[in-house]
């Protein structure tokens, strides 16, 4: 999947299996990614687990879990808010489009989470105060959180190389024989319909069409961009044009 971190780094990652996105004093988010095609390194998100930790008089611990073809409008215990405490309504799930789009508002931590199902796969977006992002007991011993630290180097896909290859080898078809083929021109034309600005959302869309042939990924990129427009606090930084590529050994996965 394509990851835009809290520091506006943009990466395309393999990250097959379960990976933590966020882990702080208030919130834990984990995604599970599965290959979009048998034997492919390209994966997409098939499951999202969100745990809101117990917090004072506001909320009990609540877990939300979305899977392919199952986007609930309630927490796993069936409730739609933070439980029985006096401030329980400071956490609530709102259904935007049945089976396609939910929003979780966690007012007690100033956080909004958007989960969508687009095609078969899930997308995730969050707006969170910096102070909450950094609220961890022991920063030095913190593990990997993709939203904060980006993907490890060995999980990053050299998107630029792929992009160049695809452009140079046109009209070569990508993917296996079972995939609906997209030429580079077809992919760019399709993505331009939804994403007129040739930023990294547009490029991600092209990448996804070339690797999978699944036109639903056009919508995934489109909605991801719509979510950034809604959730990002700096309107001048909504578009990103230069992806984070720091593949030198020993360097951090993302530029902080």
């Amino acid at each position, binding site marked *: *999947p*394509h*990851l*835009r*971190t*809290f*520091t*506006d780094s943009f990466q395309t990652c393999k990250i097959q299996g379960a990976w933590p*996105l*966020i882990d702080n*004093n208030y919130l834990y988010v984990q995604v599970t990614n599965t290959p979009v095609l048998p034997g492919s390194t390209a*994966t*997409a*998100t098939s499951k999202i687990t969100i745990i809101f930790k117990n917090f*004072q*008089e*506001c*909320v009990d611990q609540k877990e939300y879990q979305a899977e392919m073809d199952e986007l609930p409008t309630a927490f796993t215990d069936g409730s739609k808010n933070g439980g029985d405490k*006096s*401030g329980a309504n*400071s956490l609530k799930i709102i259904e935007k489009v049945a089976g396609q789009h939910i929003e979780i508002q966690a*007012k*007690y*931590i*100033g*956080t909004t989470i958007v989960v969508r199902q*687009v095609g078969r*796969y899930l*997308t*995730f*977006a*969050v*707006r*969170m*105060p*910096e*102070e*909450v*992002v*950094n*609220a961890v*007991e*022991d*920063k*030095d011993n913190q593990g990997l959180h*993709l939203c904060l630290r980006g993907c490890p180097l060995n999980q990053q896909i050299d998107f630029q190389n792929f992009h160049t290859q695809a452009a140079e080898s046109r009209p070569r078809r990508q993917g296996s024989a079972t995939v609906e083929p997209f030429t580079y021109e077809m992919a760019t034309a399709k993505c331009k319909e939804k994403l007129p600005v040739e930023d990294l959302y547009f490029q*991600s*869309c092209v*990448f*996804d069409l070339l690797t999978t042939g*699944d036109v639903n*990924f056009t919508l*995934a*990129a489109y909605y*991801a961009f719509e*979510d*950034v427009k809604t*959730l*990002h*606090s700096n309107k001048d930084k909504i578009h990103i044009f230069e992806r984070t590529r720091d593949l030198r050994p020993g360097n951090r996965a993302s530029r902080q």
Partner: protein
Amino acid sequence: CRILKCTSDFWAATSGPHHLGAEEAPEYCIALRAYAHCTRRTARTCRGDLAYHSAVHGIEDLMNNHNCSKDGPTSQPRLRTLPAGDSQERSDSPEICHYEKSFHKHSAPPNYTHCGLFGD
């Protein structure tokens, strides 16, 4: 080295109109432990910094003086700007459950960040 930020956070949590005195020892210990946590986080970058080493020794002394144990809860970051010693008010007020309201009342507006994951 961000030791001064740790120190100012500690002062903010323990001074002001509702300053924490001896009668609020548990709250004071919580603030002290938070201060200790904060200094530990800065240890790598503050090596050799006089203010840092003073703070480390100062915290140790204060913890001994107030009989604070090293293990125990630390104050939550967003609570440190709330008036101290008003746990009853915090418990009953829905304001504590509204981050922006409680934050704006006592501090600068929060900075928000965004993270997203999509596609293949």
